[in-house]
């Protein structure tokens, strides 16, 4: 199946990549998608995961056509 991957903020800079389209087997979690997209880098513990723009666990199953976002802790709002 095909999954769209997006990286944001400091994670995007560290990986040198905005996102990618990943081909992966029919049974896969968000963490599997990360491994595939990053060439086997380990998923940092503080990275947040969203599947189809909703927060998800790294062990959440993904489906064909899903979008998986990975990003660091959020820092919006005000002091």
């Amino acid at each position, binding site marked *: 199946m095909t999954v769209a991957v997006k990286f944001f*903020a400091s994670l995007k800079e560290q990986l040198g990549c905005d996102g990618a389209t990943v081909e992966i087997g029919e049974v896969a979690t968000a963490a599997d998608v990360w491994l595939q997209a990053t060439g086997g880098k380990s998923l940092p513990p503080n990275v947040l995961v969203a599947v189809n723009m909703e927060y998800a666990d790294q062990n959440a199953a993904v489906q064909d056509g899903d979008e998986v976002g990975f990003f660091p802790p*959020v820092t919006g*709002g005000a002091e």
Partner: protein
Amino acid sequence: MKVEVRATPLAPWRELASYEEAHPELAGGAGAASVFVGSMRDSNAGDSVTGMTLEHYPGMTEREMLRLCEEARDRWSLLDLLVVHRVGALLPGDPIVLVAVWSTHRREAFEAARHLMEQLKSTVPFWKQEQTDAGRRWVEKNTPGY
């Protein structure tokens, strides 16, 4: 109810005047409006900050903001909400975020506005990068507000 991610300058008081003008039903029904404006400061963690860039996750950010507003509206029986959050390049003094809440009584307005600000900081995908004399740096964590 209006939620917006904005890439251009935000003038919060003008924004509020326009919003109330466009929503005359608020006059007479809303006894209370609580508003918070967060702006870019010219220093952070002891360093002088000369600029800031805000990044978001287009689509997900708006969706999370809307979800928070709907939750707050239902929890506190709010009459209306307006949330505008900047992205892009900012200078010191520039407003970053505007949260406005209208309700019948003041307790609900105060509590909802404060809750929304905490939630905006802790759950909505925005990331700040600061420009200091030593270069650019990502803001790493949030300051607790309670």
